[in-house]
C-alpha cells in the first residue's frame, strides 16, 4: 500500500517544466486554484466542442451532408480522420461492433490527439503529460469494456471469459487474467504519459539550446509521436472492447 501511494505521488507530481517558464493559462490556473493540466484539459474540451459544432453546422442541410467539398477544407479533414478510425474499428472489431463503438473511439482519438498536439504550441503544457489525465482516460475504458462485456455476455459469461479454456487450470489463469486486466488502465495511462513527457522534454531541451530552426525536426517528430500515441491508445481500447464482447470462444488471446 505504501509503495502504491509512493508510486502515485511520484507520478502525479507536476513536471519540472511546469514550474518554470511562461504558460498562457498560468493566470487561470492560479485564480481558479486548479492544476495547470486540468485547466488545459478544459480548454481543449472547449476547442473540441466548438470544432464539433462548426462541423455539425456545415453538414446541417441534407444536400450538404451528402456531397463532400471538392477541396481541402475543415470538413474534409474531419471526415478523413473519422473514416480512418472507422476503417480501423471495422478491421479490429467487425462490422456490427464498429458501428456501435465508433462514437466513443473517435472521441478518444480526436480528443487525445488534440490534447497531445496542444503541447507543441509554445506556452501550453499537454494535459496528457500528467499521469492523472492518462489514468482517468484509461480507467474509463476499463469500466466501459467490462460493462459492455457484462451487457453482451451476461455476468457469468463475462467472468467465464477470465477463466481460460480448461477447467482444471482455471484458478491459476483466473489470477493471471485479473492481474493483466488490472494492469490495462495503468499501462494505457503510463504509456501516453511517458511518451508525451519524453517528447516534450526533448523539445524543451532543444528549444533551450538553440531557439530557432534547430528544434524544427523535433516538432515534426513531436507531431508523429502525438499521432502515434493517440492511435495506439485508440487501437488498444478497440482490442480490449472487442475481446470483452466477442461472443464465440476464441483460442488465442492477446495480452
Amino acid at each position: 500500500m505504501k509503495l502504491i501511494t509512493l508510486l502515485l505521488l511520484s507520478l502525479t507530481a507536476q513536471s519540472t517544466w511546469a514550474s518554470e517558464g511562461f504558460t498562457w493559462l498560468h493566470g487561470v490556473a492560479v485564480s481558479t486554484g486548479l492544476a495547470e493540466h486540468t485547466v488545459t484539459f478544459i480548454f481543449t474540451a472547449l476547442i473540441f466542442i466548438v470544432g464539433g459544432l462548426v462541423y455539425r453546422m456545415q453538414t446541417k442541410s441534407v444536400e450538404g451532408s451528402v456531397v463532400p467539398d471538392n477541396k481541402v477544407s475543415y470538413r474534409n479533414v474531419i471526415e478523413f480522420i473519422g473514416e480512418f478510425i472507422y476503417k480501423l474499428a471495422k478491421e479490429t472489431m467487425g462490422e456490427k461492433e464498429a458501428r456501435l463503438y465508433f462514437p466513443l473511439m473517435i472521441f478518444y482519438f480526436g480528443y487525445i490527439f488534440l490534447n497531445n498536439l496542444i503541447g507543441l504550441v509554445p506556452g501550453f503544457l499537454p494535459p496528457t503529460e500528467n499521469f492523472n489525465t492518462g489514468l482517468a482516460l484509461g480507467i474509463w475504458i476499463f469500466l466501459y469494456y467490462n460493462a459492455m462485456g457484462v451487457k453482451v455476455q451476461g455476468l457469468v459469461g463475462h467472468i467465464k471469459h477470465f477463466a481460460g479454456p480448461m477447467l482444471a487450470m482455471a484458478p491459476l489463469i483466473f489470477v493471471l487474467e485479473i492481474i493483466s486486466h488490472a494492469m490495462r488502465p495503468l499501462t494505457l495511462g503510463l504509456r501516453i504519459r511517458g511518451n508525451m513527457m519524453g517528447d516534450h522534454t526533448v523539445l524543451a531541451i532543444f528549444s533551450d539550446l538553440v531557439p530557432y530552426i534547430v528544434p524544427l525536426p523535433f516538432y515534426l517528430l513531436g507531431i508523429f509521436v502525438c499521432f502515434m500515441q493517440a492511435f495506439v491508445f485508440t487501437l488498444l481500447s478497440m482490442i480490449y472492447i472487442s475481446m470483452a464482447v466477442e461472443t464465440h470462444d476464441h483460442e488465442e488471446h492477446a495480452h
Partner: protein
Amino acid sequence: MEGQGLIALAAAITIGLAALGGTAAQGKAASAALEGIARNPEAQGKIFTPMILGMALIESLVILGFVIAFMIQGKI
C-alpha cells in the same frame, strides 16, 4: 552521500536494461513486419495494425520498468 549515488545508478540501470530488452524485441517485430511487407507490398495495411499492437504490448513492460526507475529516482 554514497548511498545516493548507488540509488541513482540503480535507477539508470533499471531503465537502461528495460530499454535494451524492449528495443531488441521491437526491432525484431519491426524487421519481421518489414520483411513481410517487402515480400508482399499489398499486405501493408493488414500487417501494420498487428505490428503496432505487438509493439505496444512489448512497450508496456518497458513502461513498467520506467515506473520502477521513477520510483527509485524519487528516493534520492
